């Protein structure tokens, strides 16, 4: 059993598991941090961005000045943003049988895999994952396509040139494999390969293994996966949460007794408690608005925003912010808000019960009804008519490189009254802000990451007790910035196996058993003999039939009737001619009783010797020796077959036959 690690990002995993005869891809995450190296795509012509000076080498060579621009000491690529794909060379991706998706953030690389690698298999995901994943992809494509960029920079990717560039461009990995965003057509084609599944649904893969999604508690429809054969079980835990937020709670029980547990997608900010961060978010929001400033929240169109809007609903009246406008701007804002309300069966219990009242499960419906929350597909159109300040704007993309957020950064960045509050933990906020420097607006970092932290992981592992844990190498050491925080790593026994990008792990367990079914009529013919209480044995002679990774014992075909010599042989004639098997013997021979029996049958002058392995019974008169050991009995007599048979029958009286 092997694990091919195609992504080095612990929360955007992409691994391939070879298990029995199947090849299973676990998640398909897209690392978008590469976009931080690019200049933002402004929705409205930005004089500042277009007038940035070109970058020149130390020796004054300016041949890169069209591709690279300098802003406040940082160098950015002036081109369409590109993404860092999972490894495509480590394994032939056309051999992947299935792709299991655990949540909508972990499927963003799907079109690259399904459309460009010869993949012919099936993708499994839950319905909310697919629907919201589609929204995220749609938003991404829209953000990038609506700001067409004439030039595409590639000169800087030359290895010899890259070496000369300043950090972080110099250190960017595998820039030659970075790709532009996919198209909507590719998205649609990729999504058409997805088969929808429900929690706890058992899906057979070629009869060899069974895969089952389980609720992971992190996002709408998010799942962990169990991949099991009859005797082996691998759990794939990716992006799970034990906090009570909107999704169905995490199903932990089903993860018990795994041979291997692959653990990815833990919180990216292990030192920040989500509750504290929500408090921090609202304190800063209120503080800014009370001073007449605006608040910008760069975010994804789904996920934490639902919880934030819910907290907002509870908080705004009490904080005296009822008249403050909240704007949610995204090409998919409307769909996201509406989708969240229709996936009732994927929500936590409290929200599910609301549906029966009937009430919308999320209170943002009421915020929209009362005009406190307004949503728009973009800043163009209705929004510009309704726009009032001070206000709070939720919009994407959290990288600050594309989307409507770029416009608000340009608009509000110059005033210290305004605040940008980062809630998404995927991007370093300092790097995200770099092309906007110098910036007067306040920046607050309140990352809200509800995924498991290390304390919860340690409790989870104690509870489910896997034999082996496999995780990204980042989880096996303290964070580089806090090397003394030994509590911020996975601590379990045996220590976890770690992986990094482009590594192949041989998972530490061997398959020892295979399940074989037995046909009823064959089972009927068996005569089990109880060897000791609770254990019965029977011999069986049958044909082992193997098809689609299923093994069945079938009765032997009847011996063929002797037929005319000219008739063609039937298939069954190929079956080897089986004689009835010899009976098997079991039991042990009590020496004293055996000696008594011998005496009864007329033998005398019997001597018993104890040996290391058993006993030797000597019949001195008959010059015969019976050697009784734990697993064998020998009768040694000189050419007296009658005596041997007599003695054999006496021995057999003490043994069971079956």
């Amino acid at each position, binding site marked *: 059993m092997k694990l091919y690690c195609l992504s080095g990002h612990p929360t955007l995993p992409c691994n391939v598991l070879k298990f029995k005869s199947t090849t299973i891809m676990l998640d398909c995450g897209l690392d978008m941090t590469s976009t931080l190296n690019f200049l933002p795509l402004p929705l409205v012509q930005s004089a500042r961005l277009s007038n940035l000076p070109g970058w020149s080498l130390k020796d004054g060579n300016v041949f890169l000045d069209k591709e690279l621009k300098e802003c406040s000491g940082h160098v950015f690529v002036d081109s369409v943003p590109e993404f860092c794909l999972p490894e495509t060379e480590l394994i032939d991706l056309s051999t992947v049988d299935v792709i299991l998706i655990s949540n909508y953030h972990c499927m963003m690389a799907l079109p690259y895999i399904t459309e460009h690698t010869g993949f012919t298999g099936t993708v499994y995901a839950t319905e909310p994952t697919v629907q919201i994943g589609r929204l995220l992809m749609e938003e991404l494509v829209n953000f990038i396509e609506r700001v067409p960029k004439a030039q595409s920079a590639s000169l800087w990717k030359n290895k010899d040139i890259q070496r000369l560039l300043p950090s972080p461009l110099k250190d960017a990995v595998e820039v030659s494999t970075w790709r532009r965003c996919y198209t909507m057509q590719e998205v649609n084609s990729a999504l058409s390969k997805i088969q929808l599944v429900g929690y706890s649904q058992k899906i057979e893969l070629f009869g060899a293994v069974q895969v089952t999604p389980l609720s992971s508690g992190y996002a709408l429809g998010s799942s962990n996966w169990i991949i099991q054969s009859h005797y082996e079980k691998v759990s794939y835990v990716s992006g799970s949460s034990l906090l009570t937020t909107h999704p169905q709670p995490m199903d932990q029980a089903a993860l018990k007794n795994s041979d291997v547990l692959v653990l990815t997608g833990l919180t990216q900010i292990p*030192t*920040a*408690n989500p509750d*504290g*961060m*929500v*408090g*921090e978010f*609202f*304190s*800063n*929001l*209120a*503080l800014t608005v*009370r*001073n007449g400033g605006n608040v910008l929240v760069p975010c994804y169109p789904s996920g934490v925003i639902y919880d934030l809007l819910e*907290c907002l609903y509870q*908080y705004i*009246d*009490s*904080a*005296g912010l009822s008249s403050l406008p909240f704007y949610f701007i995204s090409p998919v804002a409307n769909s996201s808000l509406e989708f969240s309300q229709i996936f009732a069966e994927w929500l936590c219990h409290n929200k599910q019960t609301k549906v029966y009242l009937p009430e919308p499960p999320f209170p943002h419906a009421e915020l929209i009804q009362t005009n406190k929350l307004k949503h728009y597909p973009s800043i163009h159109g209705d929004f510009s008519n309704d726009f009032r300040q001070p206000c709070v704007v939720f919009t994407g993309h959290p990288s600050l490189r594309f989307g409507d957020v770029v416009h608000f950064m340009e608009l509000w960045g110059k005033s210290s009254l305004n605040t940008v509050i980062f809630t998404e933990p995927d991007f370093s906020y300092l790097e995200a802000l770099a092309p906007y420097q110098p910036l007067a607006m306040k920046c607050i970092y*309140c990352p809200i990451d509800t995924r498991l932290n290390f304390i919860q992981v340690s409790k989870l592992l104690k509870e489910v007790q896997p034999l082996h844990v496999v995780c990204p190498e980042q989880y096996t050491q303290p964070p580089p910035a*806090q090397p*003394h*925080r*030994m*509590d911020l790593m996975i601590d379990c026994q045996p220590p976890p196996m770690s992986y990094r990008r482009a590594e192949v792990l041989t998972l530490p367990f061997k398959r020892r058993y295979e399940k074989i079914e037995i046909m009823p009529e064959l089972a009927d013919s068996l005569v089990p003999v109880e060897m000791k209480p609770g254990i019965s044995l029977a011999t069986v002679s049958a044909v082992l039939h193997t098809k689609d990774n299923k093994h069945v014992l079938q009765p032997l075909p009847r011996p063929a009737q002797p037929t005319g010599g000219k008739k063609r042989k039937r298939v069954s004639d190929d079956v080897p001619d089986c004689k009835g098997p010899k009976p098997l013997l079991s039991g042990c021979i009590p020496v004293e009783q055996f000696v008594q029996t011998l005496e009864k049958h007329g033998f005398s002058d019997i001597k018993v010797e104890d040996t290391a392995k058993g006993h030797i019974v000597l019949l001195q008169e008959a010059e015969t020796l019976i050697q009784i050991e734990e697993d064998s009995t020998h009768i040694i007599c000189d050419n007296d077959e009658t005596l041997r048979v007599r003695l054999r029958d006496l021995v057999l009286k003490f043994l069971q036959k079956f």
Partner: protein
Amino acid sequence: MDPECSQLLPALCAALADPRQPVADDTCLEKLLDWFKTVTEAGSSLLLLEGSPCLVELLCQVPRAPGLSPGVLAFSLRLAGLLAAQEDCFQYLQQGQLLPGLFGEAGPLGGAAWTAPTVRSGWIQGLRAMAQHPSALRFLDDFGALDTVFSLQGDSSLFVASAAGQLLAHVLALCMGGPAGAQPGLQARDWPACAQRIVGHIEEALCSAAAPRVTQALHVLSTTFGRCHGPWGQVLWERLSPPVARLLEKDPVLAAHALVDLLLSVARSPALSSDSGLWETLAQTLGHLSPTQAGPLALGVLKLQDCPQALRTQAFDVLLQPLACVLKAAAEAPGPPGLPAAPAEDSAVVDVLLSSRSACVGLLCQTLAHLELLLPTPQRPSPWPQAALLGAAVTVLQFCRGSAVPASGVGSRLCVTLAGCVRVQRAALDFLGALSQDTGPRELLPRVFAVLLDYLASPDSSPTVLRKAFQATLRWLLSSPQPPGSCDLDPHTQRFLGELLPVLQKRLCSPCWEVRDSGLEFLAQVTRSWAGQAGFRDALLASEVPELAEQLLQDPESYVRASAVTAVGLLSGRGLHAARGSPERPGGPQKSLLLDLLHVLSTDSEGFPRRAAMQVFTEWLRDGHAEVAADPERFVARVLQAASQDLDWEVRAQGLELARVFLAQMLGQPGPDCPYAVAPPAAPAPGRLAQALRALCRVRLFEFAFRALFDCDRAVAQKSCDLLLFLRDRAAPCDGPQGMGGGPDAASAEATLQRWRAGEQGQPLGPLEPEAAVAVLRALDLEGLRGALAESSDHVERSPQSLLQDMLATVGVLGDHEADCY
């Protein structure tokens, strides 16, 4: 006993002895016992018995009445003990063989009733009450009661077990040094039989391997030595100290807590503390016990008056060791002097700190609490390692935030254990706050401020931790040194304040109401002390804190509104309020904070904000707040009108306080404020008095006070009574001829008051002229009213006669029903 009670008693006794008439309420029996106790303390129990033979009859019948409730049985046992406490009465009861019947085998002992813990408890308490004289001791011995008491030490009911231990200690003390008998000889063989048996029993228990038995014995000894003042204590200790010392040989030490209690109790006993062997035992014990067990002993030792210096040093080291360990775990270089050398990595302290999270947290919290207790006491060790302790407290807090950099393996483990531990955070913040009372090394101040700011700013600080952080910050701020000869703040403090106010701003906007509340409380407290500091005023006024505090007057949570009222009232009183203009028209007419607070007083649905508003108003009136000083009469009238209709008695009482301040300003200080004044304060001139009275009438103070006089809440009525008495005395010069004050106005007012007294509070009083008011005032029997109010409201119902009647009434009702059945 008064005759009425004597008459009621026989019927009651008969009812109590009747199993068919159960007493519904056990508290009646307790009250009855209390009453008997006062009666027996006041006079002879023998006379009481002779005067009330029904009591003897009750005590006779009780053991023989099957099915009697356990409550009555226990009551009878305790009553018998109470009566037998006097030796002559004991003899009297003995003559009738009453006591063996109750306390011996013939009584409830061993019978079915004995299963009720109440009965066992009554039995012990009866004996405890009785054991006051040698005859009682002999009685205990003769009837083998001691064996029963020994067995009851392990009773399943904790009350019974504890009472049994107390009884043994009491009997032992009585045998050995009781006032009744002569001092026994100091040789053990001369001791009374009772004492010998108890001591033997204790010795045996001390040698037992069962921890509960050892604990019981140690408890008895602790109690005994706690009361022991005679030389016999020394003899007893000489005999028992070897088995006690042997307890230390076991590992782990059995009943360590009880052992610590005993040793401290012995050490505190003046007769024993000169024993050098004792100090040795204490030193050994400190060395033997685990760090968690040794902590309380070390604290106790340090609090002792006369204790050898070496032992004190050892004890202080025990207390300091966990902190030394923490300090070392995070320090590359040796820390400030004063702490003992940090223990080796395999020491017991390190073992506890690393064994489990709960053990580590328990030891650290206990250590911090002990040191905090020691800090303000005169016995605290000197020199006090202030710098080292400050460093340790800061380090503990850094470990809890994950910001301490561990210097060793122990440090790394502590980092894992303590990260995010709220209990330790709270304890360490309390301790850090307490350390502020000492002028520590100035160079540590920035570190203290830094860690406090870290806690105040951190989003992960829980509301309770934040509250403690605010409290500690306040203590450090207020104790921070001031440059000599300047009313400005020291530069560290000024810088800290500059960083603190933005954090406070954020906290005032927190979604968690507890945090907003703590922030406002902090603001109020710091303003109260520092309103005069120019540095503070400038920093505060430059921030948005005053404005945010004012916005919190509309907070949805009543506690926050109350704190906001207090804070804003204080800020306004000290000239630190936000510039008030309507947001639409900055620079337009200013809104009045007075109106806002009046609005709170008259409309807020919760009591806390209204009480806070009344307190602010009283303070404003007292301090001459600008908005009040403009027209104090109008102010007082409006406030009193709002307060008089309030449903919360505290608001009404605070209204009277405001009225008192107003009166004082009009007429001079009231008497009760200067109870030791030699001469009464000079009465105001008649002209001024008349003017003042007219003002009082205008603000309708009389109506408010008269109404409060008949308030259903006694505290309000009392306060009003005091106020009116003062007013009446001051108004004396205004008298003129008697009767002049009468007239139709006064008569109608008096009639209204009569109706108010009868409970018809709805009737208005109408405008009152000063003369009429004074006349009404004089007509009221204020002294009588004050006397009546001074009695508690149930003084009539609490008389013994009423108690007996009540008890009889309940059984009487039962009797009626029985009659109905036939």
